[in-house]
C-alpha cells in the first residue's frame, strides 16, 4: 500500500512545437491483446454530447470514447493525441496541426481534417450557446489545409491556446454526426452498452490508432449516487477504482489490504464570495472584516482534515508554482480588527447574513465552520443548504449576496480570472469590477512574455488578498483509490481526465 503524492511541477507554458511526444507513444509498439476488466465507480452519467458534458463521469467516458486534438498529461504538459505535432507562426496567431494517419471512427469512417473543423466550428458558434463559445471567441478561422492537416487562426495572441484546444469539451466528432450522443468517437474504447442511471460498459477499440492501447479489454463504469457506497464497494471488491470520495472516506482506506490510495494537489478550491455590487459587500471594510474573521488553518484542519493547501484568496494556487506568489498571504485572523472594521462600516451591532451553500462536498461543513468563526466577529450567518441542481440550475449562485461555490481544477489559472473575476465575466458571481484587476488579467492572458505574466499574476494575488470580494480558504486535493492488480494509473487533477487507456492489468 502506497500513497503517491505528486507535488506540482513547473507548468511550462513556453513549450511550443518543439515537443515531439509522438515518439514516446509510438515507441510502445508491439500490440499485445487487450485483457482484463476495470470497474470504476462514478456519479451517474447524464450528458453524452461532448459539447455539454461537465461532470467527472461524463468527461471520463468521453475521454475514453473520443480523442482530443491535443492532450494534457498529469504534469500539465501539452502532448499530441490526434494531432501528431503542431506548428506555431512567429506572430503566435496561426497554429497548424498535422493529424495522425489511419484513424477511424467507431462506425468505420476515416478521420479527416474536415471532422476537426466541424467539431471546433460547432463548439465556437455563439448561436449554439455551448460553454466553449467564449473560450474560442478569439479564433478567427479554422481550415482544413490538407486531408490530414488543420490550421487555426487567432485574433490575439494566447499563450494558453494549446490548453484551450484540450478543453474538456473539445473531443473530435465526425462531421457526419446526426445525433451528438451516439458515442461515435475515434477513442480507445467503444460503448458496448449504456444503461442510464446504472452503468456504461466500454470495450477495447481493437482498431485504435495508438499501438499498445488500450490495454484493458473492458471498462465498466458503475454509477453510484453515494460516495459511501462507492467506497464500500471498493472495500468489498465489487469495484476497482474510485476517484471521488470525502476526506474521511479517504482516511478510512488507509491501511486497507489490496487497495492503493492516491492524493494529489489540485488548483480546485471552494470559493466564499460576497457580492461586491451592493450592500454590504460594496463596502471594502466588510470584505476585509470577513477575511480577518476567518481562520484558514482551522478550516483546513476541520473541513479538509489537513489535506490540501491553505489558500490566499486567489485562484492562482500553489499548484501553479510558476505563478503562485508565496509572499502573498491572506490576512491573519484578527477578530478585534474585524469587529472594528465592521463597526466603522456601520455594523457595530453585528451583521446578519444568509450564506447559500450547494449540498455537495465539504461545502456545508465549510459553512458550518464559518458560522462558528465569524460569529466571534459579530457576523451572524444563517446557513441555507440547497441541492446542487437547484443552486446552479436556477442561477441562484450568480444572484445571492453571500455564497459558496466549488471551482474544479483547471490546467492554467487564467481561466479562473477570465470567467470568474473580470468585469462582466460570464460567471462573475461576486460581481467584482476593478479596472486595475481587469488590466492585469488582460495583460497576463495575452502576453507571450513569461516574466511579464508572472509579475501580473503576482500583483493580481496581492490585489485579491487585499480587496477581492472572495475568500479561498483552501485548495482541495484529488483523491483516488484503486485495487491492486492494475498498472499505468495516472490520476489527473480533474479526475475525469484520467486516462483509462493507459491502465492495464498486472
Amino acid at each position, binding site marked *: 500500500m502506497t500513497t503517491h503524492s505528486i507535488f506540482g511541477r513547473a507548468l511550462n507554458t513556453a513549450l511550443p512545437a518543439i515537443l515531439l511526444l509522438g515518439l514516446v507513444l509510438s515507441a510502445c509498439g508491439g500490440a499485445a491483446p487487450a485483457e482484463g476488466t476495470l470497474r470504476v465507480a462514478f456519479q451517474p452519467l447524464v450528458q453524452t454530447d461532448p459539447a455539454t458534458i461537465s461532470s467527472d463521469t461524463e468527461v471520463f467516458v468521453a475521454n475514453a470514447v473520443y480523442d482530443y486534438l491535443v492532450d494534457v498529461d498529469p504534469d500539465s504538459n501539452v502532448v499530441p493525441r490526434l494531432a501528431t505535432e503542431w506548428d506555431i507562426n512567429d506572430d503566435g496567431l496561426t497554429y497548424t496541426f498535422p493529424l495522425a494517419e489511419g484513424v477511424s471512427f467507431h462506425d468505420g469512417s476515416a478521420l479527416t481534417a474536415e471532422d476537426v473543423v466541424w467539431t471546433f466550428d460547432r463548439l465556437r458558434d455563439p448561436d449554439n*450557446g455551448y460553454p466553449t463559445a467564449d473560450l474560442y471567441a478569439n479564433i478567427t478561422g479554422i481550415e482544413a489545409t490538407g486531408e490530414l492537416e488543420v490550421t487555426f487562426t487567432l485574433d490575439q495572441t494566447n499563450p494558453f491556446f494549446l490548453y484551450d484546444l484540450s478543453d474538456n469539451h473539445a473531443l473530435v466528432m465526425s462531421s457526419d454526426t446526426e445525433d451528438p450522443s451516439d458515442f461515435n468517437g475515434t477513442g480507445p474504447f467503444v460503448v458496448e452498452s449504456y444503461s442510464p442511471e446504472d452503468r456504461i460498459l466500454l470495450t477495447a477499440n481493437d482498431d485504435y490508432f495508438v499501438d499498445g492501447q488500450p490495454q484493458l479489454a473492458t471498462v465498466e463504469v458503475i*454509477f453510484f449516487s453515494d460516495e459511501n457506497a462507492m467506497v464500500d464497494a471498493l472495500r468489498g471488491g465489487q469495484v476497482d477504482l474510485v476517484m471521488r470520495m470525502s476526506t474521511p472516506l479517504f482516511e478510512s482506506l488507509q491501511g486497507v489490504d489490496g487497495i492503493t490510495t492516491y492524493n494529489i494537489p489540485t488548483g480546485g478550491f471552494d470559493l466564499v464570495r460576497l457580492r461586491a455590487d451592493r450592500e454590504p459587500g460594496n463596502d471594502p471594510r466588510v470584505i476585509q472584516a470577513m477575511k480577518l474573521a476567518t481562520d484558514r488553518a482551522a478550516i483546513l484542519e476541520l473541513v479538509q482534515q489537513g489535506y490540501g493547501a491553505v489558500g490566499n484568496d486567489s485562484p492562482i494556487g500553489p499548484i501553479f508554482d510558476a505563478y503562485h506568489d508565496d509572499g502573498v498571504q491572506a490576512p491573519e485572523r484578527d477578530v478585534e480588527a474585524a469587529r472594528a472594521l465592521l463597526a466603522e462600516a456601520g455594523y457595530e451591532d453585528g451583521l446578519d447574513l444568509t450564506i447559500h451553500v450547494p449540498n455537495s462536498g465539504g461545502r456545508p461543513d465549510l459553512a458550518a465552520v464559518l458560522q462558528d468563526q465569524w460569529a466571534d466577529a459579530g457576523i451572524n450567518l444563517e446557513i441555507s443548504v440547497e441541492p446542487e441542481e437547484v443552486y446552479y440550475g436556477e442561477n441562484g449562485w450568480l444572484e445571492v449576496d453571500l455564497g459558496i461555490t466549488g471551482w474544479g481544477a483547471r490546467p492554467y489559472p487564467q481561466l479562473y480570472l477570465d470567467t470568474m473575476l473580470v468585469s462582466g465575466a460570464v460567471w462573475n458571481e461576486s460581481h467584482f469590477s476593478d479596472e486595475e484587476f481587469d488590466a492585469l488579467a488582460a495583460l497576463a492572458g495575452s502576453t507571450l512574455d513569461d516574466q511579464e505574466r508572472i509579475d501580473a499574476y503576482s500583483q493580481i494575488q496581492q490585489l485579491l488578498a487585499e480587496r477581492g470580494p472572495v475568500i479561498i480558504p483552501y485548495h482541495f486535493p484529488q483523491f483516488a483509490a484503486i485495487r491492486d492488480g492494475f498498472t499505468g494509473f495516472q490520476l489527473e487533477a480533474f479526475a475525469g481526465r484520467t486516462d483509462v487507456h493507459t491502465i492495464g492489468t498486472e
Partner: protein
Amino acid sequence: MARYILRRLAFLALTLVLTSLLIFVITQLLPGDVCRVILGREVGEAASQACRAELRLDDPALVRYGDWLSGFLRGDMGLSYSTDAEIGPLVAERLGNSLMLAGFTLAIAVPLATGLGALAALNEGKWLDNLISVFSLAVVGLPEFVTGIVLIELLAFRVGLPANSSIRPGTGFFEALPSLILPALTATLVLLAYIARLTRAGVLEELKQPYVRTAALKGLPRWVVILRHVLRNALAPTITVVAISFGWLISGLVVIENVFNYPGLGRLMVFAISRRDLPLLQGVAMVTVLAFALANLGADLLYAALNPRIRVGE
C-alpha cells in the same frame, strides 16, 4: 369474477390518472430549470433555449400532460429528458430487479416473521414469547440506514458477502442472489417486527375464538388444532399486510437501494426527481402504482381463497 377484476382495474385506471396528474402538478412546481439541470451550469442561454424547444417545455402544461397521457395510453412512455433513453425498457429492467429483491425479501421475511409471531402467541407470556417480543422491539427501533451500515460492516467486510449490489442489467435471479442477500436482509428486518407482531396478535385473537374450543373438545391433538384451525384463519390478515409491504418493497426501498447501490425502481425514481426528469418520474410512478395495485388485488383474491366468507365466484 371477471367483472370484479374489471371493476378493480377501472379503479386502478382512475388511481393511475389521478396519481399521474398529481405528479405532473407537483413537478410543474419543481424549481430548477430542467435544461439547466441537464446541461449543467456552464451552458449559455442559446443552448438552454434549444433544449427547451426540443423538450417542448414551453408548451402549455395541459397540452404536455395531454401528450404524455395519450402516449402512455398507447403504451409509449416517451423518452427520458435527462438521458434521452427510452423509458419503457429502462423501467421494465428496473422493475425486474425490484421484483427480484422484493420476492427474495418476502421469501425470507414472511415465513420467518409469521413463524416467530405464531411461536410467540402459542407461548404467550412465557420466556420464548418475551424473547421474541424483545427481539422484534429492538428491530422496530432500527432505521434501515443503520441496519444497512451494520450489516455491511459485519457480513460484507468480515464474512465476505457483497457489500455492493449493483448487478448488471439482465442478471438472472440465481446469479444475482449473493448480491440480494444484504439488501433483502435489511428490508426483512424492517418488515420482521411488523409482520411478527401482527401474526402474534392474529393467532392470539383466533385462539380466543369459540371454534378453537370446539376443535379442542373434539379431542384433537394440540398441533392439529393449531395448524388446521388456528393458523389458517390467523394468517389471513397477514396477507393484506404483505401486499402493502410489497408496494413498499417495489419502490420504497430508496434508502436501502442507496446504501447498497441496488439498481431498483426507488433509486431510479430518486434520480428522476433530482434531474427533474418528468417523463421518467411518471414512468416509474405508474409502474409503482400498478405493481402496488396488482399486489393488492392478488392479496384480495388470495384472502378470499383463504376466507370462504368472501369466497370468489361460487
